[in-house]
């Protein structure tokens, strides 16, 4: 056989094997670093605990929470509706398996602001422009929302609205935190993120 034909067959065979092999899929960050940096310094990308409480109390379907802590911490104090993707796994996983594209807002949180800030920039670099982080993380959330109590006295209508959303979101959060592990796992499985189901259609 002609050596050129033989070489072509070898190359095509190698290509076919590669096409069926489960190769690791690495993704590149797009967008100018300068633009990503200036976007990350934009204060409006930080969501406050009160804003998040309001989204949760209104059952806003356009927000998507990503908990970047370890699974053990997430199981103890996960915010209702969040999915757990430990920070060190975000570059290994296919982002479409845990982030929402389009107009939905992806909100990252952890114990502090550092990792969620990085995660937000990574998500923006991967094309998920509507990415935010929870300022102060779970600690701020617990202080503002979960531990909120009515201390008596007169409050304004605005303070009352704020208090109501805190109480509603806080109740949901505390209820989830106090569930026995077996029920919590069932709840989290029921909430499991499945982007295909969010694609719409007429099913």
């Amino acid at each position: 056989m002609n050596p050129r034909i033989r070489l072509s067959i070898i190359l095509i065979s190698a290509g076919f094997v590669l096409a069926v092999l489960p190769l690791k899929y690495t993704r590149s960050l797009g967008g100018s670093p300068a633009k990503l940096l200036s976007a990350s310094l934009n204060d409006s990308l930080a969501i406050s605990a009160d804003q998040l409480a309001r989204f949760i109390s209104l059952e806003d379907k356009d927000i998507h929470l990503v908990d970047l802590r370890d699974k053990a911490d997430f199981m103890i104090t996960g915010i209702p509706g969040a999915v757990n993707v430990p920070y060190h796994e975000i570059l290994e996983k296919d982002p479409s398996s845990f982030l929402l594209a389009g107009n939905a807002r992806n909100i990252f949180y952890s114990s502090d602001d550092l990792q969620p800030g990085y995660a937000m920039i990574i998500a923006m670099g991967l094309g998920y422009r509507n990415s935010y982080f929870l300022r102060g993380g779970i600690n701020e959330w617990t202080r503002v929302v979960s531990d909120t109590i009515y201390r008596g006295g007169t409050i304004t209508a605005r303070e009352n609205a704020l208090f109501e959303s805190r109480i509603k979101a806080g109740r949901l959060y505390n209820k989830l935190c106090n569930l026995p592990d077996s029920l919590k796992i069932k709840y989290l499985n029921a909430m499991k993120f499945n982007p295909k189901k969010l694609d719409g259609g007429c099913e």
Partner: protein
Amino acid sequence: MGPVSSLISLPGWANMLIAVAIGIGFGFSLEQAGFSSSRKLVGMFYGYDTTVLKVFFTAAIVALAGSQFMGYLGLLDLTKVFVNEYYVLPAITGGVIMGLGFVVGGFCPGTGLAAISIGKIDAMVFFFGGLTGAFIFAETYPLIKGFSDGTYKGPVRINETLGLSPGVFTFLLIIAAVFMFWLAEKAEKRFSRPDISADI
């Protein structure tokens, strides 16, 4: 696991020395393949000699398939391999300038240096022209900075842009390469120049 530079931390000069050794090896291979002849190189544009296409395309697909196999077997960490950043319009403009320089000068930068190493005077003139171009670029950079740094897309890979897995993309590229090789052979017969080919 590779790349080698991630296995052992070498001082800067040692890394440069490795680059020089690889460069000499590359230049030697180019010269041995006949790429120090500008008539052979521009044969690609006239169709009578398509060795350039066959050699470089074969090198690209072998390197691509090889690195992916090594990555799959755990011998090479592809996440640590540098991916060049993509600036759309500057890349197209640079490609046009490079192509023009190639067809007019008869060399590309690497083959030009390989030809200098065997004393070719036309390659020395070509190299001087390249240096002049680099000098003009450096001196006019403040004026063209906006264009040069614009339309930035980051270190993207073609397979990502096309939404294909790396393996499927490699397979399709190999098919395209084999088709191009077949086409190149046809072109060589169609535009055959025995008078030039005999001299190369």
